[in-house]
């Protein structure tokens, strides 16, 4: 009897969600093909390991940047298009600090200020890196966080707070304006060419069984991102501020009525979201080693994809969505020609949205 119940239950759920079944079969086929390629040697294990490593590192950065975007959305209800440029600004502030500390005395302050884009303080000369100049890197990360916090709070005070009651579309276009102003202010000072920043002589750790190499910068990025994500998790779940933020995300009026100081919560949201964004910008540059005035703007599309895929408003969704997008954009090389990797990441987002229109963690706001 139980077996027949099980089958009829299965039949019902299959009947209800034909799309899900088709997708499940597709995923199964891809996984089987992956195993086949690995065992036949068509895909060396080392290649898959490199794809996964890069996907995860990219995903962590995108996820970290996505948390801030998602928090602002859940508390203030608007998509901040200037988010990518907050990231760039944080990265420039942080790297300027790192260069000033790492190259102090050896180069003029003016040259260090321009982080090798012009002047004598080139990558080779300064050689900033986790192993070579750990204090400069740590200070840079802190300055990136603090500067972006100040920037985002200041922009909120100056611009967004005056538009708090406006429609979403007004805010979206205002944030696009803020994005352009920030980006071209950076371009005005540092120019539009990208520059190499980090030392390439970092220690590497190899997993000898598959020949995978992980360098010190990648480890730093992964550890810092995970620590910051856990910190946000702890904050939201176990502190008074976190509870207040969740309450406000659920129902702003109700939160206000129960005596939660909503203005202070909004400011705290910018502080946390801005800080995480600045950190993401600095860490991304540490990993990729190059920085340009439009780095954050280029990344913004991926960040939005991650946040939407995870369910906009959910920070766990942003983290998980970032990882999924990052890994999809690299592992898809196993099956697809190289021109389609970016497209594959977005196709995955569309498929997830068709199955779960609110995203993976949709409906669970902030927490």
């Amino acid at each position, binding site marked *: 009897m139980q077996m027949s119940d099980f089958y009829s239950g299965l039949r019902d759920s299959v009947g209800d969600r034909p799309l899900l079944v088709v997708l499940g079969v597709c995923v199964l086929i891809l996984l089987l093909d992956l195993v086949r390629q690995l065992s036949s040697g068509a895909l*060396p294990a*080392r*290649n898959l390991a*490199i*794809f996964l490593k*890069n*996907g995860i*590192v*990219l995903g962590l*950065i995108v996820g970290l940047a996505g948390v801030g975007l998602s928090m602002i959305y859940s508390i203030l209800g608007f998509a901040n298009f200037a988010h990518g440029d907050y990231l760039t600004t944080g990265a420039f502030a942080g790297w300027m600090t790192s260069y000033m500390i790492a190259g102090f005395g050896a180069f003029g302050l*003016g040259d260090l200020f*321009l982080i*090798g*884009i*012009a*002047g004598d303080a*080139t*990558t*080779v000369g300064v*050689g900033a890196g986790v192993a070579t100049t750990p204090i400069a890197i740590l200070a840079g990360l802190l300055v990136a966080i603090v500067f972006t916090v100040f920037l985002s709070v200041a922009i909120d005070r100056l611009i967004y707070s005056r538009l708090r009651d406006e429609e979403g579309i007004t805010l979206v276009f205002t944030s696009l304006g803020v994005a352009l102003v920030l980006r071209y202010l950076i*371009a*005005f*000072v*540092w*120019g*539009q*060419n*990208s*520059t*190499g920043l980090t*030392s*390439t*002589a970092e220690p590497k750790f190899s997993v000898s069984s598959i020949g995978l*190499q992980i*360098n010190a910068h990648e480890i730093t990025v992964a550890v810092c991102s995970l620590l910051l994500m856990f910190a946000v998790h702890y904050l939201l779940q176990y502190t008074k501020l976190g509870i207040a933020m969740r309450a406000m995300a659920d129902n702003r009026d109700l939160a206000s009525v129960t005596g939660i100081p909503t203005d202070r919560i909004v400011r705290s949201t910018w502080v946390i979201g801005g800080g995480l964004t600045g950190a993401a910008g600095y860490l*991304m540059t540490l*990993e*990729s*080693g*190059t920085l*340009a005035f*439009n*780095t954050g703007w*280029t*990344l913004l599309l991926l960040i939005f994809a991650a946040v939407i895929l995870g369910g906009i408003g959910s920070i766990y969704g942003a983290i998980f969505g970032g990882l999924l997008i990052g890994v999809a954009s*690299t592992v898809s*090389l196993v099956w697809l*020609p*190289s*021109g389609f*990797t*970016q497209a594959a990441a977005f196709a995955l987002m569309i498929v997830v949205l068709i199955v779960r229109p609110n995203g993976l963690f949709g409906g669970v706001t902030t927490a």
Partner: protein
Amino acid sequence: MVANQKRREFIATVGAVSAFGVAGCLSGDENASGNTIKVGVMQPLTGPLGSVGEPARDAAVLPAQQVNDADIEAEIDIQTEDTQTDPQAAVSAAQSLVDADYPAISGPLSTATTLQVLQNVCKPNQIAECTLATAPTITDVDDNDLLFRTSASDALMSQAVAQLANEGMDVSSISTFAINDSYGQSLANAFADAFDGNVLEQVSFESGQSSYTSKLTQALSGDPDALFIVAFTENGIKILRDFYSDFSSDTEILATSGIYNPAIPENVNADLTNITGVTSVGTGPSLDHFNQAFNDEYGSEPGQFTWQAYDATATLMLANAAADSNDGAAIKDNMRQIANPEGTEVTADNLAEGVEMAMNGDDINYQGVTSDITFDDNGDVESGTYSEYWFTSDGALETGDQISID
């Protein structure tokens, strides 16, 4: 200081624009004067090609200065625009040249900007365009014969790289790693056809990625003898950083003009001795005069694409003089007239006299900086000369043998 330079440029632009506005009000229709030869110059002064575009712009305005300094009837009126290496921005820049009645455009540099400007501005308005873009697609594009180019097609470049790989370096298997646009894809495909050996993987990449390691892994998965990279300097920095951080330098790297840039060793921070590349060089009859004039004017050595840029402006100027009108259709009809054989030879040395001769209706034959400049039916030059280059262990760029392809 970059800041100062930008500010100066900004002020100069504002000044130029307002001066132009005033001039427009005062003189009215300039076409009527007949002695003013108008040429618009477009180069990427910012964006991925900015570092190449600035010297190219300097070279492109040089013919006008030479003629204006000489004591002749005609005056050259030149206006410079920035394409930002972006097709959209290039179209607006070209449109502003057309709005200011410029009948011909010298430049731009990249294939994508050239094609957009051709389709959206030059064809509708009958504007002659002399580009420096190198993609083979330029040859066959439907252009109403408005489009010319002074640089050699990458169909020739791909043969030069293949010849270097096959004969100079004895490479038997290779993968390509090319930027995902019309320039990169057509060059990589033309190379794959010309190369005599195994092409293992053809990988394409998008510009502006935070990591290229995964795609490099894919390209190098068959363990090829060499990797052929087609990238601009901007992407090249990031790609080479990823290459040297994760892969063995035993793999030879073949490269094109994009890697031929001192910014590469400054920003990559690795031993680059496994890179060998080819870059286009000027070998035309005017080369020495041009080098001298460029050095006198700007105090620096002319680099890649300066030769082609000079030739582009010079041919458009001469064709304008021969047509005796600031009319795009008339200019394009005179391009072969002034550049191809038969006629008095004109070089960078006697350019002003050449303009006078052309205005008098004499038959002239422009002998360029890049080559002797002879346009075929497609508006292409007929041969390309390239120079082999490599990096020394302390990061200096060195050039070696020349490779000529007809």
